[in-house]
């Protein structure tokens, strides 16, 4: 095992593997930073080049790109409030307000360092977990997926900030929007208005880009200034952000674990784990008042989770052939092109290759973070550029990204529609993250609820893992209220004591 672990590392630095990884990193850098243009599209373009490569070379090329997109995607989220990747949407909630307050450097430093810690933790957890990973993955069946979906629902309120009711309603709207398309059991059209392009539902990329990017662009236009509204001291702060990662090491580590766990569960992607990580960061904090307004802990959580999941997500893809995201689906295609049939035997026969992939993710992230740190101060200066100069470039990217979701004008129309919805929500003080979470959770819950009942009837509610997850979900829902009640009651008691003493 150890031998494979070390030889896996050495293989990464062999020629031409290392060079191909650098090429991949360069591509991932660009793709991650450009909003709307995501890693799936980039990987699809890179796919034909790997026919002539050896397996490790091919994965160096592809994983180099993929591993850094979650990191550089966070940069766009922070600077522009536009998710660079689907998995970096949660970084916006606190990262972008920080940029607006002139703390772009600090937010970027925190995002990068937590990404690096996340990637390393994720990779090593994965390496350590390989012997037990098969039974672990196989113990997750439809009822367990359903329970994870319900756990996500429990986080809706946490993501809602101050207006809980509006948040839960927005989450409900997200769930309703998730119903658009053919229903998964009977193929009956729901809210498709006769458009075949809507059969597979509302595209997450188009929705995200519309919901977050368009309101930001309009905001920028109306203000007529740069993104940063205030000049707080010097731009720097990058070092502060890096220190923050270690000051709040608990959050970074726990969110890395959350990301790793969600990555391991087949078919559940980073699109969900970032929100759970963010919710955890909020819930575990004693002072919650700064969340949503620029709390660095809100950047650290999702920053760590979206990177730690990348390594873990290789396991269901390699060992079970079940990809959790659009990108890992293409990676699965790459495996087959390379003549590697996914299956449990990959974990034993190709162990050295798998460890190399783990190392590729770690090394790519280290290189990216180092390169980013060099340019970070320059990047942060973007927030001081006049909006009028930024808007055309942003608009172009947003429309391109929206169109590229399914290569159709319908996707563009969806982007624009969500843009309008986003504008109204921002204007009326409705939180947007719950809606995104609803969109992500809808299909997961619906499919698995139906299958669970079909196969187990109501027996599915009694499965041990389901019970554990539901207890956690209930704790997430009610613990804050109970805490509050306890605090209030003790305060009342104190008052009563004080009154009786008087």
């Amino acid at each position, binding site marked *: 095992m150890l031998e494979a672990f070390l030889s896996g590392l050495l293989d990464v630095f062999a020629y031409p593997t290392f060079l191909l990884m650098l090429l991949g990193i360069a591509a991932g850098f660009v793709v991650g930073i450009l909003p709307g243009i995501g890693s799936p599209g980039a990987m699809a373009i890179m796919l034909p080049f790997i026919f002539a490569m050896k397996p490790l070379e091919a994965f160096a090329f592809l994983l180099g790109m993929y591993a850094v997109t979650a990191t550089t995607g966070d940069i766009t989220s922070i600077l522009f409030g536009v998710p660079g990747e689907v998995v970096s949407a949660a970084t916006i909630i606190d990262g972008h307000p920080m940029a607006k307050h002139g703390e772009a450097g600090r937010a970027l430093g925190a995002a990068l360092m937590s990404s690096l810690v996340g990637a390393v933790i994720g990779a090593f957890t994965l390496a350590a977990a390989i012997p037990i990973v098969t039974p672990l993955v196989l113990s997750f069946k439809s009822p367990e997926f359903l329970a994870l979906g319900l756990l996500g629902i429990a986080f809706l309120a946490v993501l809602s900030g101050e207006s809980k009711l509006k948040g839960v309603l927005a989450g409900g709207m997200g769930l309703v929007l998730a119903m658009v398309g053919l229903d998964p059991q009977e193929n009956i059209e729901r809210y498709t208005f006769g458009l075949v392009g809507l059969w597979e539902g509302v595209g997450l990329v188009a929705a995200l880009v519309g919901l977050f990017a368009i309101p930001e662009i309009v905001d920028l236009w109306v203000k007529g200034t740069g993104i940063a509204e205030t000049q707080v001291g010097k731009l720097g702060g990058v070092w502060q952000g890096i220190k923050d990662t270690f000051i709040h090491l608990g959050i970074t580590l726990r969110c890395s674990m959350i990301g790793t766990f969600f990555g391991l569960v087949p078919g559940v992607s980073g699109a969900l784990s970032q929100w759970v990580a963010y919710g955890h960061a909020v819930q575990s904090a004693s002072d919650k008042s700064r969340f949503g307004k620029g709390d660095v802990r809100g950047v650290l959580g999702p920053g760590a989770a979206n990177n730690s999941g990348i390594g873990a997500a290789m396991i269901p893809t390699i060992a079970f052939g079940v990809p959790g995201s659009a990108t890992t689906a293409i990676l699965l295609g790459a495996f087959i092109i390379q003549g590697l049939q996914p299956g*449990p035997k990959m974990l034993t026969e190709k162990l050295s290759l798998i460890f190399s992939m783990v190392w590729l993710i770690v090394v790519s992230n280290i290189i990216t973070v180092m390169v980013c740190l060099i340019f970070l101060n320059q990047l942060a200066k973007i927030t001081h550029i006049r909006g009028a100069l930024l808007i055309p470039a942003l608009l172009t990217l947003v429309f391109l990204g929206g169109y590229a979701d399914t290569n159709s004008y319908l996707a563009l129309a969806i982007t624009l529609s969500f843009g309008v919805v986003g504008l109204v929500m921002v204007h009326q003080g409705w939180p947007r993250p719950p809606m995104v979470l609803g969109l992500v959770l809808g299909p997961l819950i619906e499919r698995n609820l139906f299958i669970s009942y079909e196969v187990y009837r109501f027996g599915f509610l009694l499965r041990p893992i389901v019970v554990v997850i539901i207890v956690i979900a209930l704790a997430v829902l009610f613990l804050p209220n109970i805490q509050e009640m306890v605090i209030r009651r003790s305060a009342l008691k104190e008052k009563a004591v004080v009154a009786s003493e008087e």
Partner: protein
Amino acid sequence: MGKKLWLLAASFAFLTAPASGASVEDFYRGKTIRIVVGFAPGGATDTNARLLQKVLPKHIPGSPNIVIENKPGGGSMLAANTVYNTEPQDGSVIGAFTQDLVLQQALAAPGVRFDAAKYQWLSSTFDTAGMCAARTDSGVTRIEDVIGDRGKELVVSSFGKGGPSHIPPAVFNATLGTRFKIVTGYEGGAPQRLAVKNKEVQGFCTTFQTIMSVAADMFEGPGACCKVLIVAGSEVENHPFLKGVPAAEKLAEKLGKGKDDLALLRATHAINRINLPQAVAPGVPQDRVQALRRAFEKAFADPELRAAAEKMKMDLSPKTGEEVSRIVQELLSTPKPVLARLKEVIQ
């Protein structure tokens, strides 16, 4: 001014002139062909198109560029509709979608806005067959174990009604009297198979080609969990996984099933014989269609493609455009009552 207008008019005329007068080679030289793939990147249709993308240009007169455009939607129906109706009909756009759409048309399914009989088919990649398999620990070892009133009920996972994971068990239930209990709603082939691996269900149905390319681990080696019970068609390929496995049509005869049952089995099997097809729109000039058809034939025989396919453990069984067209025509002329019954069976 007048001169400029004249120039403008001339260039306009040049740009819009009917291209059919030019030779095929002139037309394709310096052009870019788009292969519109009806699915997201990474799946079988996409990988197949990207494999062809590499070798096809050198076999088309004029050696055009080829790019892949993924246009997912409606289980590739969107791509089939678009290529047929709105894309240029000059041979610069090739559609790659699922063969199941032909069946959808035959069944008058909603959303179909093309006529598969008029589509000009260029090729298909595999000649395969639907099949069902069971977990070896399910107590079912032969198809006979699940047939009839005393047969055991076997829960199989499926994604999408009317697709390759649903038609075989539904049709076998209707014709052979098998007792497959179909749980549909899984998100795709991979989750469908995961449900078998983690014992949520006891079996699954798919095409034999799918098994070969992505699920051989379920039938051999340390992770082997399953055994094939039955294969559609009238004969069974010579392959270790299929030793002693009956062909559905033969079994139907043995069980004394009627002509209607056989017709239904045949109609649903025909569709898998043209797995992963490519086509161009009805308006594309004949000479270009012929050139493309021959190019696909040469591409499938190309050593570079063969080597790549071998690496992917793909056992290619391509059909020419003419063969695909013939099978499509046959399928579309399936007698109405048979189609009506099929519609009932898969609902």
